[in-house]
């Protein structure tokens, strides 16, 4: 059963300046007793989140309020400075689509590699299915990704990233680069993915999107939970899934 339990979690993010990466400087600093003060910001401050299967949590807040950091913390990228993090279930973090892409490889190889990275076996059928979703020509499978336009690239990456369902899905805002037709399809698939996942956490500036998809919205401010809003169950209006962007 998928659960997420964060208790009084804090994360002190060390800000390494150019000098902090220098061993010589650090050793010399010890020698001449000039202990350089390490700058630390508290990126996540005493956050407690309990989520069980079925939870749809939206993270909202201004830039730099710690949304992405909190997602990374849940994904296990950053260890918490204090507090306890207990997560059971298979976590799939989709925080940046570009991760692990090599533009020199042909599309097919990239898909295969990305699937391997997420622990799936890239069979012919799976790759074909993904390709079908992108609606690109079959022969383009054999082209290096460098030759794709950014929109086409996004299609490939999105299709690959969302090919398999997950227990716990962590999404950072990234549904913004594709053209309108594909955006519709993409959000449909995303909603489908969200509906299959046990727990979803979405970080977004887009309040309407959060209100549509989430059961509760956590507003973050300077790493602190400013407020938690429970969203009423969606009204009788049909899901307006589509996201229009200028």
């Amino acid at each position, binding site marked *: 059963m998928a659960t997420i339990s964060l208790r009084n979690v804090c994360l002190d993010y060390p800000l390494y300046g150019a000098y902090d990466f220098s061993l010589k400087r*650090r050793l010399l600093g010890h020698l001449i007793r000039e202990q350089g003060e390490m700058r630390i910001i508290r990126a996540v401050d005493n956050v407690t989140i309990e989520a069980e299967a079925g939870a749809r949590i939206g993270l909202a807040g201004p830039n730099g309020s710690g949304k992405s950091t909190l997602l990374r913390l849940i994904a296990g990228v950053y260890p918490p400075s204090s507090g306890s993090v207990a997560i059971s279930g298979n976590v799939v973090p989709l925080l940046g689509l570009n991760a692990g892409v090599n533009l020199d490889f042909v599309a097919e190889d990239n898909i295969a590699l990305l699937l391997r*990275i997420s622990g799936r076996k890239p069979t012919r059928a799976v790759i074909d299915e993904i390709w079908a979703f992108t609606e690109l020509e079959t022969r383009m499978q054999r082209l290096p990704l460098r030759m794709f336009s950014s929109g086409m690239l996004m299609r490939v990456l999105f299709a690959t990233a969302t090919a398999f369902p997950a227990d716990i899905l962590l999404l950072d805002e990234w549904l913004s680069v594709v053209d309108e037709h594909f955006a519709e399809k993409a959000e449909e698939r995303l909603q489908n993915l969200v509906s299959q996942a046990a727990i979803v956490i979405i970080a977004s500036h887009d309040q309407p999107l959060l209100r549509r998809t989430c059961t509760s919205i956590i507003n973050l401010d300077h790493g602190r939970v400013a407020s938690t809003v429970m969203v009423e169950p969606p009204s009788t209006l049909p899901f307006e899934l589509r996201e229009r962007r200028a």
Partner: protein
Amino acid sequence: MNNSSESPRRPSVLHIFKIYYPDLFGGTLTVIRDICASLKETFVSAVLVCSDKGESREIINGVEVERVRSFGNVLSLPAAPAYPWRLWRRIAKHDLLALHAPFPLADLVFALGFGRKRPLVVHWHADIVTHAGLRRFVEPLMRRTLRRAKAIIVSDRVLIDEAPLLREFEDKCHVVPFGIDTTVYDWPKIEPHHVNDRGRLVLACGRLVPYKGFDVLIRAAVNRQFEVWIIGEGAERPRLEQLIRELGLSERVRLLGSVNDCERVKLMCLADVFVMPSVTNAETFGLVQLEAMAAGRPVVNTALDTAVPRVARHGMEAITVPPGDAEKLGEAIDTLIGDPERRRRMGLSARTRAVTRYSATTFKEGMETVYRAAVTAPSDEVAPAAEALQATGWLDSLRIAAALAWSDMRHRYVRSLLGPFWMSLQMAIVVAVLGSVIGQMSNADMMSHLPMLALSMTAWTFLNSVVLDSTTALQNSASLIRDRALPPVIFLLQCTFRQGLFALHNACVPLILWLLLSPHDLSRALAALPGLLLFVTCTFALSLVLGALATRYRDLKPIIESTLMLAFLASPVIWSAEMINHRSTVMRLNPLTHLFAVWREPLAGGHVDATSIVYVLVTLALLLCASVLTLVHLRKAAFWI
């Protein structure tokens, strides 16, 4: 173990601690002994500890005590290398494990995931205070132990509030105050409210270790009238004796040494004031002050952030003074000495509190409840899943690293027309040129040396490239680490795998040369395999450590590059030991010499020097230790990139 067979119905408990009677006397040991004694009817107890006096196994008061040899103490910890192993062997034989923390040696066993199937109860006696620097290394271990514990027992609520580590596991903590058998203090001749008219005897009791603060008590006795008797033995004795001499207090201050229980009870009842001068939070409860309270003595204790000032409360059973303040301590003692009525009043309420609040029965019931709950709790629910998850985690990491390396390999072939053979050709040219040059310098028969030269060059290229690649690997894969949450170790593994594939590929040059120029002796090649494996393992461990370090400290990369260049010249890669007249010191000290020797010697038909093997194994052990440390710190790699 025999204890489980003698009475199958009673579950057996293994108490895990560093030391046991009669090697030492002290509060924690009293607690363990009391638990064993009071739970006699419901649990079979056994104790596993270390001892300086060597291995032994005996029955003390019906409790089986096994001691593991330790070679003295390092940083307050017994140096008992066999302890973790013995603990692991014992775990399966008991139904419940009771760890008396802090004891990092045992944490090590639990942190590594052994004994998951047995319920664990942690008795939290104290935080690590004395060697605070050690904390940073030990805390992750302790956290892992606490995470898997079924219950954590503390003697007072305040310990949970004061220890950040415990607060994380607050819901598992149970407060069970220590209790003592107060009947032994019903000394027939002395009524509990008995007050000595002379009123000058101050008693203190505890091991003679720095945190007990006996030096403060001795200083407090300067220019005062009372006499101080201190019960206990320990490493501080010479220092305390010297202090007493220096202050000229030999008349009034006495170190009584170890005293048996009966005698101690008598002394407790005779004393006028009991003092607990402890100076650090290592003193969490102060069992002896409870004994003094049971004997109806007023107490002077110190304002620590632990249960000490809460067991005997200021103004009611005790006077509490700031820790380490000899002046205040002396004043407080004088106040009590000079006021027999107050002493009597405090003594009475101390006795009442000890009997009602800290009775042996309450303690026993509390312990029994926690132990029973831990034994009956379903223990296997989460554990195997977590174990499997960990195992698949490692396997997945390996698989992903292999996939990435394989993709790198393929990519390399895609780019160049000559593809696979370009690099090998380059290697062949290098070997040919070097071979002829060296052939000129030494008049040895170069042709027979060529296969070995080619192989050495391949091996060196492998080591060199793995280490160089690893210094940038983490930065190059920043997005995968931060956005897909892949463990950083994957990318260091990737370097070794990738260069391994390249090396296999380049190995065609030495292979062809070997087939052409040498007698084909396959058994030699087989004999070289273990050495080659050592070589690869060392390379990987080295790349792990340097890769992480170079990511954290960016100025290391140029240093590593130039060091590798130097190492290449100083090691017998292109030249061999026979070419120079005598084995130079630099060469002998250079671990690379031996790292090459362990597989080159068998391949050349000789046998490996024992020194080389020892040298390589020691290097490997050091590297592995460093790797483990690195892996712990690699969790923070996402901050560095």
